[in-house]
């Protein structure tokens, strides 16, 4: 019994010691970090994108001996709660790159550095960056973030499955009707093979994948002032009916989890340019890309994605370091190399026309569709209510894909839910 006592005591003192030393450890680290300035850069660029980023950052750190930027990667779904708790408690990193869809909310936090003021005026700070990309960074006349990357959705298709189904692997569909015919041909291969993979899981994923159909058909999503939905129209019904029929009438698609195309089990899918590198290296099939097919009498349209980079208020030193990094990272030469490494799209003409990028596109023909498509990219509404709107919209549409609610009812429900989300958020 004595032994137990002594053992317990020693374990407890060990525990106390360990805890105390952990605590002081960080304090020492903090006091040492007077010079140079070390700042964290939160982002969700993982895998190849993450490696590309750390390469660039290493270069930056070498060039700027007074600054050490440390990139920290979190999974996409987890970065937002991290930022929310950091902002709520005043422990923000110096730098972050986030999804453009979150920007309206980030802008209201009051914690972002005015980049226009820090970089000698908005005009000077933005250069020839495309104006459509700047909407996410401007808030009450101030520039609070800059585009770090942009991208869009185009059509991916599985050339092997096209061949097997007797289709021409070099002739991807150009219209909805062709897409439907191709999808039906491929689904006849059996074994659960889908002609077209459709994203039906509720959330921003569903909305972001479906919006191009709305824009192509002319239905639109919200009105110009972002105060009311416009999708509950004849054109909107045509768009939704098209996909719902692919699933429930043609049986050329399945309402289910996302991922069949990656496994070589679906003929077509809409996805972003960042998948090009991954498919080239890892896909167990030959793939091609094309601009999104459009309906009869419709227009070209796709959805714009990407990330904004921002600096958070902190000490003069960390803010200056963060601004220096943003200026460097958004400069044309660095952006061109960033796009080459990640297959993201250029943010300005000077990036698009740089030799580095032009050479890369020549070597990576699958990117061409995305470059062509980029000028038809629509921006999602940059309003604080957007996440709630998107969620309500996707939840109302989900049952239509499963065939439990009619297309017109689903859109009517979505209309009501979106109006409510707009008024309460």
């Amino acid at each position, binding site marked *: *019994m*004595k032994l*137990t*006592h002594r053992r*317990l*005591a020693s*374990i*407890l003192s060990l*525990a106390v010691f*360990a*805890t105390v030393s*952990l*605590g002081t450890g*960080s304090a020492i680290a903090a006091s040492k970090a007077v010079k140079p300035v070390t700042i*964290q850069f*939160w982002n*969700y*660029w*993982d*895998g*190849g*994108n993450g490696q590309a980023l750390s390469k660039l950052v290493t270069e930056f750190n070498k060039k700027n001996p007074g600054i050490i930027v*440390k990139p*920290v*990667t*979190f*999974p*996409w779904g*987890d970065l937002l*709660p*991290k930022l*929310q*708790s950091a902002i*709520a*408690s*005043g*422990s923000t*990193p110096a730098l972050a790159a986030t999804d453009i869809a979150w920007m309206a909310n980030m802008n209201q936090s009051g914690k972002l550095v005015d980049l226009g003021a820090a970089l000698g005026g908005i005009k000077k700070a933005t250069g020839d960056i495309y104006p459509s990309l700047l909407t996410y960074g401007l808030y009450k006349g101030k520039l609070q973030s800059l585009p770090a990357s942009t991208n869009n959705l185009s059509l991916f298709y599985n050339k092997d499955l096209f061949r097997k189904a007797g289709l021409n692997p070099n002739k991807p569909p150009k219209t909805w009707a062709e897409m439907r015919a191709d999808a039906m041909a491929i689904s006849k291969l059996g074994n659960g093979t889908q002609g077209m993979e459709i994203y039906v899981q509720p959330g921003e994923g569903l909305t972001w994948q479906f919006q191009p159909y709305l824009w192509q058909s002319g239905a639109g999503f919200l009105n110009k002032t972002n105060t009311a939905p416009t999708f509950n129209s004849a054109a909107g019904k045509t768009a939704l009916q098209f996909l719902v029929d692919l699933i429930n009438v043609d049986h050329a698609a399945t309402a289910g989890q996302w991922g069949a195309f*990656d*496994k*070589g089990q679906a003929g077509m899918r809409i996805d*972003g340019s*960042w*998948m090009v590198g*991954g498919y080239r*290296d*890892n*896909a*167990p099939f030959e793939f091609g890309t094309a601009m999104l097919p459009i309906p009869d009498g419709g227009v070209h349209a796709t959805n714009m994605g990407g990330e904004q980079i921002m600096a958070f208020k902190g000490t003069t030193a960390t803010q200056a370091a963060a601004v220096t990094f943003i200026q460097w990272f958004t400069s044309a030469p660095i952006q061109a190399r960033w796009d080459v490494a990640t297959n993201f799209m250029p943010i300005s003409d000077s990036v698009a026309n740089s030799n580095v990028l032009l050479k890369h596109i020549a070597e990576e023909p699958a990117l061409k569709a995305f470059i062509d498509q980029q000028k038809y990219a629509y921006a999602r509404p940059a309003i604080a209510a957007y996440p709630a709107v998107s969620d309500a919209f996707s939840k109302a549409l989900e049952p239509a894909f499963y065939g439990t609610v009619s297309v017109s009812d689903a859109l009517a429900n979505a209309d009501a839910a979106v109006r409510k989300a707009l008024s309460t958020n």
Partner: protein
Amino acid sequence: MMRKFKKISLGLADHLVLIAISSIVILPFVWMITTSLKPPKLAFAAPYLIPTHFHWQNFVNAWHEAPFSRYYLNSIIVAVLVTFGQVFTSALAAYAFDRFEFPLKKTLWFTLLASMMVPLPLLVIPSFQIIQHLHWADNLVALIIPRCWSAFGILLLRQFIHSIPRDFDDAAKMDGASTLRVIWTVILPLARPAVATLALFAFLFAWNDFLWPLIVLNSPEHFTVPLGIANFSGKYGTRWTLLMAATVSATIPAVIAFLAMQKSLIRGLASGGVNE
């Protein structure tokens, strides 16, 4: 007599049932290992359960991207200290609740029990603001100190201590032992099964915890095992073979550790007789 008893509990049918259930339980592990050894292009190709490729490069890459030994160390530090912390604070509180009368006892007891029903995600943001005030953000301390108490632990130990006759305390007190000493030298050894159960529960909770470490930690060198794994699946595509190599790296040592410790664990849980 013993022989007859054995005859009843042993049987071929039992074995068959056990093998059937075990093979279902073990299925994910087999799949995990096989996939972790495939070249990336074959991640979704048969065979799924018997490794035919040995693409060790996945492990090299996974370890290159994520320092698992570091994650392990962090996870172990956190889980061990949380376990000791919970046992320590629960033992003291449980003893007080069982052996003493004091003002507000019933109210306090009820409040502590009710706190077991608080949904944890609710506390994330307010708790983190407190951590921030204490300057514990991005520090393992923030994973340890707030978790060093447990309403369940107090409940469990109090029930067990209640079954230990007060004569034991009194005998020790006659010898001049202080209350703390009585708890350490008399009560805790007698309550070993309950302590072992609490320790196991606390350790596993800390070991598996995901949301709270995610919110609190920023620097990869402080990450715990679950956070390290989560970073392999992302918005821009999941790299399955790497993810599986990471998962295998994160799982196998824990299983081996259990294999080594399970005898003493069972003995700890059992001795003294759970059924007083």
